[in-house]
């Protein structure tokens, strides 16, 4: 059994990162030019890493499946980005941000990693501001802040409801600067099909050129995955519809452990599903809960128009259940509370699967103009999609699959269990435990890419300076390419009747019903069987028109869905294994009498890192015990 080594530096919490940097090995500028790095993905994590590494002088090859790096799904993040600047004098600090994340993650994240991301958060804001990211400002010219769920300070920087777009475009600009200098080469419309391992180290990738269909080999001294999360496993989610887990899954099959795969964040405030044709759920930013109040009617199946329901007949259930945090409880808590109200018959709208998010009081108090200034584009978006004007009538919202806290297991250096393979941003598991707090995702992705990875990857590459450029005609590349081509041929040869999307929808439904907001042993076991059956049907009856020598979007989808079947099994296995409730992982068997998550710290205070054992074989569980030396482990309460 491989022993997981998290490589957490010794020393006091606040000094670990400084000590690490002091002791890390460096690569001199002349040698950097001789070292190649592959970065997969151009979201905030990938683009920030590629540009920061390019600035240092490495030869970077950056890949994305989109036609331009600017389209990666970080672009859609809405509400904001956290930093411990304490510009509001409201008691914030690096420690407080760290503490909020540890508690928000329900004591299932690694202390040292979380402290480090809180530590670099301020550098991230300085950098973005210098890059011309137009964050909101107050009249003195300084940066403005707002509040997000699960915290009692205002530490979130924002650019209306388009903070992700602004941060990503800022990062896309830094990336372009490196492209202009020749340190970064961009490969867009390329999808990674496999990771190549030579002598136990990650040395390259096999990619499919999505325009010509050509299978290409690319080599490097190190490979960085910044491929995002796997929320589209539910088919309907807040993610871009082409987001996928294939690169991370291929890395897992080549030996990278996958950590806490069942930890998935279901975001409480998405526009509810309206019909069966729907391909996507659109998020309404958590920032709206600063001013919006969530409620349902006090009477079951109340079909009255919301504006006709008098104040005393409304149940502001979050304010009622959680008076200390009210509408700003963390996402997992808010999602479960909405589900509870809808499951017991208090839900609204035609399906009964929705609750109200009401701005009436905020508009009365602050005026329509102030609300428009803060959330204008979100209100507009809601109006376009639903045809309902949220200035006049409350929004209807319901939880939707959003973010995956689980991901590739990484050590303190953000390196996976495959030497030379790094995972950053949402694709790793490291900073959010069992639940991510709002506005922490932009912080983590850019922190990883700009300020952490450049140090840790150099520490690895310092030992690689004598290795010349890796040849792509090595047998390992040959073999990997052969396997990739064979799978494509196999998919095309099925010639069945059902589309990849129809399978994806059915898989998503199984996962949503049994491995979504709440889980139980019976349901999970049932889901496992259903996924297996569906996977067999997929390999017998999939329809892909056309061939592999051209743009073939059906082939692209099919490859992603094929990988999702396998990942779904691992998610279910992980959810079955964790016989406790923590954060977003809610096992119905383990709850308090009030319906709150009931942790079992004695048995489950560990990261579950799964090792691939072969197709249809039980994966091997490795436990990384979590130790809390700097915070007291408590029952997480927002009451």
């Amino acid at each position, binding site marked *: 059994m491989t022993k997981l080594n998290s490589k957490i530096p010794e020393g006091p919490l606040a000094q670990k990162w400084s000590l690490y940097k002091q002791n890390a090995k460096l690569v001199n500028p002349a040698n950097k030019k001789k070292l190649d790095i592959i970065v997969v993905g151009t979201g905030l994590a990938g683009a920030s890493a590629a540009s920061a590494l390019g600035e240092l002088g490495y030869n970077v090859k950056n890949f994305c499946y989109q036609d331009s790096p600017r*389209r990666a799904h970080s672009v859609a993040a809405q509400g904001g980005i956290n930093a411990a600047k304490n510009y509001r004098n409201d008691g914030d600090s690096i420690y407080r941000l760290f503490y909020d994340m540890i508690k928000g993650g329900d004591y299932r994240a690694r202390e040292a990693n979380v402290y480090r991301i809180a530590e670099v958060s301020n550098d991230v804001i300085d950098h973005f501001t210098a890059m011309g990211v137009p964050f909101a400002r107050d009249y003195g010219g300084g940066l403005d802040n707002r509040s997000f769920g699960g915290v009692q300070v205002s530490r979130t920087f924002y650019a209306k409801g388009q903070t992700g777009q602004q941060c990503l475009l800022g990062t896309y600009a830094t990336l372009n600067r490196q492209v202009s200098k020749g340190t970064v080469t961009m490969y867009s419309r390329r999808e990674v099909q496999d990771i190549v391992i030579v002598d136990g180290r990650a040395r390259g990738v096999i990619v499919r050129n999505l325009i010509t269909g050509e299978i290409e080999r690319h080599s490097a001294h190190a490979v960085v995955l910044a491929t995002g999360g796997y929320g589209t496993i539910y088919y309907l989610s807040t993610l871009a519809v082409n987001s996928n887990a294939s690169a991370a899954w291929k890395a897992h099959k080549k030996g990278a452990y996958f950590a806490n795969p069942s930890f998935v964040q279901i975001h409480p405030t998405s526009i509810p599903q309206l019909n069966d044709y729907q391909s996507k759920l659109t998020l309404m930013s958590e920032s709206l809960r600063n001013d919006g109040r969530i409620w349902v009617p006090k009477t079951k199946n109340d079909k009255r128009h919301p504006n006709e329901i008098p104040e005393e007949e409304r149940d502001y259930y979050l304010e009622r259940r959680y008076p200390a945090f009210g509408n700003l409880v963390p996402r997992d808590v808010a999602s479960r509370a909405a589900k509870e109200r809808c499951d017991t018959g208090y839900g609204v709208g035609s399906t009964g699967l929705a609750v109200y998010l009401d701005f009436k009081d905020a508009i009365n108090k602050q005026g329509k103009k102030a609300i428009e200034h803060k959330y204008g584009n979100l209100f507009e978006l809601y109006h376009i999609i639903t045809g309902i004007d949220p200035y006049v009538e409350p929004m209807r919202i319901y939880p939707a699959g959003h973010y995956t806290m689980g991901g590739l297991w990484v050590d303190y250096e953000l390196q996976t269990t495959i030497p030379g393979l790094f995972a950053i941003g949402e694709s790793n598991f490291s900073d959010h435990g069992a639940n991510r707090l709002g506005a922490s995702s932009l912080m983590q992705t850019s922190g990883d890419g700009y300020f952490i990875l450049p140090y840790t990857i150099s520490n690895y590459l310092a030992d690689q300076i004598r290795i010349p450029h890796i040849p792509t005609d090595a047998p390992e590349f040959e073999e990997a390419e052969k396997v990739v081509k064979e799978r494509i041929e196999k998919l095309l040869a099925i010639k069945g009747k059902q589309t990849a999307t129809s399978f994806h929808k059915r898989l998503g439904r199984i996962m949503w019903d049994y491995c979504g907001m709440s889980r139980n042993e019976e349901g999970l076991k049932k889901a496992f069987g259903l996924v297996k059956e569906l996977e067999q049907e997929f390999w017998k009856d999939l329809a892909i028109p056309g061939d592999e020598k051209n743009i073939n979007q059906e082939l692209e989808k099919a490859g992603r869905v094929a990988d999702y079947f396998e990942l779904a099994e691992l998610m279910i296995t992980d959810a079955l294994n964790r016989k406790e409730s923590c954060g977003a992982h809610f096992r119905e068997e383990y709850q308090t009498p009030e319906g709150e998550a009931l942790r079992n710290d004695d048995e489950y205070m560990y990261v579950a890192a799964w090792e691939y054992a072969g197709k249809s074989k039980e994966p091997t569980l490795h436990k990384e015990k979590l130790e809390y030396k700097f915070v007291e482990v408590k029952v997480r309460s927002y009451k």
Partner: protein
Amino acid sequence: MKVKLKIWRQENAEAKGSFQTYTFDKVAPEMSFLEMMDAFNTQLITEGKEPVAFDHDCREGICGACSMYINGHPHGPVSGITTCHLSMRHFKDGETITVEPWRAKAFPVIKDLIVDRSAFDQIQIAGGFISMNVGGAPEANSIPVKVKNADEAFDSSVCIGCGACVAACKNASAMLFVSAKVSQFALLPQGRVEAKERVEKMVAKMDDLGFGNCTNTYACEAECPKDISITNIARMNREFFSAKVS
């Protein structure tokens, strides 16, 4: 609902394309345009035919991937939205809907409705950035910025790079796109240092790539899904001329 779809089909960049007309009767008014296309593609696949290739990703109006020219308008007949937000309730039962790719010399068609927009990346690579290294930034609040400037810079920065402005323009000009980026940086103190070089390089690259001239028809502003204002073009022209005379 039943519609007639007149769609541009083109096998690849080299092939000669043509319009093909199809009847599709499984349209629901609550579908988005792309969901209608998904359902239509499912029908084609079931009939053993190749589905229509089109770019799309976030489906929430922010990534800028979707790019269909519908009934003579980029992103269709409703203003201020992208194709992914266009609802089928804006079309009539029995209507003929014409769907084309963006048409511009600098955006060659790759397949069906997919075009190559890498020319936009190249313009940005030419100078659409602030040359500040990671780690070199001053404390964020050390440079105050007027709310008015920050808000105006934000308004310019919301461009999603979809290319609708180019597709709408009879000259296939990229002035709105380029001027939005030039303006965002020109309005902020952080961007002033390189303002002169930036505008010169970006404009030169734009001209090189075969985008046309601006003749003030304002079609770009009218069709921009993010309502980017043509005042950006005026600002870029000022920046450009002052760069040339300084």
